[in-house]
């Protein structure tokens, strides 16, 4: 482990994200299923990316994903202070297909590789909705 890793910051709900955060509050990562062609779409979709149908319905994701890309963000050093914790913004590919721009937690930055399996976790910063984050899959 190459240093402390910070978790997500707070986020508030708005009209667009109500359904999604209702899901995260229950430990679910809600995607959107197409009632016409069966495709699974990302949570922010208005229409099905495959067939352009509307009327997408929430469907819980498996929570499994693989790592597409990641960055280890270092806070600016402050003179006379120890280095702050890094954050690990990441792109993950959900097993259902969509990509999700998120964050890794409980990860050893020295062992990350593209394609490694991940699982979703939920973190709730103070004053925030529950935020989905990803961590290397056990085993």
């Amino acid at each position, binding site marked *: 482990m190459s240093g402390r890793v910070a978790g997500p910051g707070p986020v508030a709900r708005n009209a667009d*994200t109500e359904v999604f955060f209702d899901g995260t509050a229950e430990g679910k990562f809600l995607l959107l299923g197409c009632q016409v062609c069966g495709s699974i779409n990302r949570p922010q979709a208005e229409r099905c990316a495959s067939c352009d149908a509307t009327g997408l319905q929430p469907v819980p994701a498996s929570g499994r994903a693989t790592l597409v890309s990641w960055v280890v963000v270092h806070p600016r050093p402050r003179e006379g202070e120890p280095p702050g914790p890094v954050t690990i913004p990441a792109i993950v590919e959900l097993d259902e297909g969509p990509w999700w721009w998120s964050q890794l937690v409980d990860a050893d930055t020295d062992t990350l590789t593209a394609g490694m399996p991940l699982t979703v976790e939920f973190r709730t910063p103070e004053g925030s909705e529950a*935020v989905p984050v990803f961590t290397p899959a056990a085993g």
Partner: protein
Amino acid sequence: MSQSDANGRRRPVIAGLGVTEMGTVYGRSSSQFAADAVRLAVADAGLQMGDVDGLLTSGGTTGGVGLGLQRDLALFDLRLLSEMQAFGSTAGGMVQFASMAVQSGMADVVACVFADAPLRPGRAAGDVYGGGRRPDRPSSAPVPAPSGWGGLMLSAGVSGANTMYALGARRHMEKFGTTEEDFAAVAVAQRAWAAGNPLAQFREPMTVEDHHASRWIAEPFRKLDCCLVSNGGVAVIVTTAERAASLAKPPVHVLGWGQGHPGRLFDRDPNFGIRTGAAQSGPTALAMAGVKLSDLDVVELYDCYTFTVIVSLEDYGFCEKGEGGPFVSSGVSAPGGSLRLNTGGGQLSSYYMWGMTPLSEAVIQVRGEGGDRQAFPHNLALVSGNGGILDHHSTLVLGTEPV
């Protein structure tokens, strides 16, 4: 030389270049820099302000370079006026629209200007583009949590150009084996070019070791992988070849242009970090100009990060896809190499004026005004703009003569 092209249209040229004092220059706003740059460009061309009948403006992070610049400059009864925004591809886009305007007869003398003044005393350069949440340092004043899908990305730290481009760079490294040494090769080569550029903010020599010793910003990017931040303004004057024939400076013909906007950012996109809009804008511009890559004497690529240069070289076809790292590490782009690339030091070492950085250096080179860093020959130059997160591209082909 005919003053018209094969289709009877007037030929567009860049006849003037204005570059203000650049860098940590305080006390002037972006609109003041913009006005200065336009006046300098008009004077450089040997024109009068009253000759200007078109104005295209572009502001950076601080805005303020909009339609009001017409009043600031007392440019009355303009025949073309617009504020443009496609991020780092804007400068190239302005020259493209200005060229079409003079080609068609819509306007005769169009000033295209970018200016920004993000640097302020006591404020870190990174604050401007960083998006910089410090998770270990909660603000004393309560700030409302961000909301919406964008807010969710912010909460995860997916914000700021450094992080976004680093996510793209990491993909390139994982897929093709591109290395930090390859990134360093870009930074070192451009610093060597900057030594010959009196306008450059950073001219002292840099080694690979210097690069590796610079602190991490967003791994895989170190500080010396990131462009600098500048206050200042740059303007060019686009007019007809006919008009330029009697003006002060050798005309720089605008021979070809193209744009590419993939539009898949934040969606599932196997090309993210791998293939950019330059793969579309480049061939379009070269075909319009009727030239091949091998005809180019000078190449000025947008270099917000070292990685941007590597992926752009691949997308234009200077090397095979995935070979950009070894290509730059071969030394091909350092002074004395076979590719005259980012000859003024680029945004990494000279000055950061979005797409005006590669454009201004190309104009200097095509004119033969490059002094210690002048490329020979300098008949044809390619200018690449890159904006958003590898998401907006513009390409120009410039030359000493109509093709």
